[in-house]
């Protein structure tokens, strides 16, 4: 881990009583971060490779494309029911990857929680998981596709891999919130490690685990759409890809987009409701 100590040097962090609002380490770090982001952005925008694109024309073209997509959706290659079925397949992919990921991450999360496992083990698991997370999920899918062939199987393995990494981090942090004294109290009564886990750790963090898992389900839904388009997995993403890259049919892109938007918004509403219910319960 690289510590960023240079940001708040001593002369800045010493409180100056004459000013009403001392520029402390935190404020300085915020300003520096914003400054770096702003300068980088200006540099990026000035040097962006526009390839001789005529901006006003391109924007107008895009707007007219959007008009076709959103105001004249129509399908030539599938019926509304087939579209619905394709969405169900995408949901199935998202469910499988979330479930497999969740089950594996539950165990890895226990091994990565600092209050439950030895330090060397948590360090090993946390580093491995950070590495897996850093690789974009599409690349995992494509790497597995070499062995499994392009399709649903590669997509499920690749997305599961990424879900495991994401959920292990989320779960282990939820486990670490449990007070050490609870574990010590249970240990003192003679409970073994598994009893501590199943009687104290998992019940007390269950609400967090569920909301993290559902959040991941939402992410996996949009990932599954992307994998359909980029890695040939089944489902609505593949239809989106076919409509725009193969048939060049904007009306069909429009219909598929409406399907995806509708389901994504339903998932979002469900997640928000579930979260507020869980929060009330906790």
């Amino acid at each position, binding site marked *: *881990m690289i510590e960023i100590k240079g940001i708040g040097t001593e002369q800045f962090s010493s409180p100056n009583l004459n000013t009403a609002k001392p520029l402390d380490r935190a404020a300085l770090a915020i300003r520096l971060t914003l400054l770096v982001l702003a300068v980088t952005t200006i540099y990026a925008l000035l*040097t962006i*490779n526009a390839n001789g694109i005529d901006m006003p024309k391109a924007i107008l073209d895009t707007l007219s494309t959007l008009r076709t*997509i959103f105001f004249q959706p129509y399908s030539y290659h599938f019926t509304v029911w087939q579209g619905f079925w394709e969405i169900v397949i995408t949901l199935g992919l998202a469910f499988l990857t979330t479930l497999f990921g969740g089950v594996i991450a539950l165990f890895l999360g226990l091994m990565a929680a600092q209050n439950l496992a030895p330090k060397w083990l948590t360090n090993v698991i946390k580093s491995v998981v950070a590495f897996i997370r850093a690789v974009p999920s599409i*690349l995992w899918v494509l790497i597995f596709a070499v062995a499994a062939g392009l399709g649903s199987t590669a997509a*499920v393995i690749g997305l599961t891999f990424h879900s495991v990494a994401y959920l292990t981090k989320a779960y282990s942090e939820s486990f670490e919130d449990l007070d050490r004294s609870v574990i010590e109290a249970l240990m003192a009564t003679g409970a073994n490690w598994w009893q501590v886990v199943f009687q104290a750790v998992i019940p007390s963090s269950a609400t967090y685990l569920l909301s993290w898992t559902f959040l991941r389900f939402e992410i996996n839904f949009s990932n599954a759409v992307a994998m359909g*388009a980029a890695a040939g997995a089944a489902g609505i993403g593949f239809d*989106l890809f076919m409509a725009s890259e193969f048939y060049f049919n904007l009306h069909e892109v429009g219909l598929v987009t409406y399907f995806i938007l509708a389901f994504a918004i339903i998932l979002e509403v469900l997640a928000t409701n579930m979260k507020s219910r869980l929060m009330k319960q906790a």
Partner: protein
Amino acid sequence: MQADVFIRRRNNAVVFFAILVVLTAGSIVITQYDLQKGFTSFIKAFIWGASNFYPDAGSLRKLPDILVKLWETVLMSIAATTVAAIFSMFLAVFGSRTTRIHVSFTVIARGIGSFFRNMPLVAWAMILMLAFSQSSLTGFLALFLGSLGFLTRAFMETIDEVGENAVEALTSTGAAYFPVIFQAVLPASMPQIVSWLLFMVETNIRDATLVGLLTGTGIGFLFDVYYKSFDYHVASLVVIVIVIAVLIVETVSNGVRRVIL
């Protein structure tokens, strides 16, 4: 009475797991996921990866090209985040419960946020490709539109949470609308907002790979070229470079977060 509680708890667990099993079986059937093939190809992929998917001496010659593309991608991800943040900030301030002028603003801002958040990145990439073709602008705009939705929602929730007390305190002293925003709401929510910005930069670097694959720009395109020409040594080098970039950004963000939060 106590036995009752245990029985109820057990029954709940049984129902929960039964639903899970049914959903899993259903999903396996409809997605035509091959369990056995999944397992064997997982092992096969590792054996293949260990024997093919590593950079060799020859691939290192491509490193300068890869780094140029990486730099482009990182710049694009940061620019998309920052520009989106400016728009999101306006939407969030006008839409937040605590700082809105009228309830209708919340509905509009939430609607815009929800639309852009749920619109698949793939669709944006493909739509923008039509007019902007294979230029970096396509990737930039796709990431910008995706970030806009996410950041609007994140900022709005932050202002909702942090803003309430600050607004109440300042309005009771008779402060006007804009002073309240600039003196209380923004400073109070700034640490959270910066934290979201850094998170978005990280996410955008990863998503830029996907967008690049689809639109033929940036580092994603480079991976695709070598992957499709079976040059796995160079492709693996691209992956390693992306991983290092993401880990560096993550480490820097964690460091900044530790100081500001």
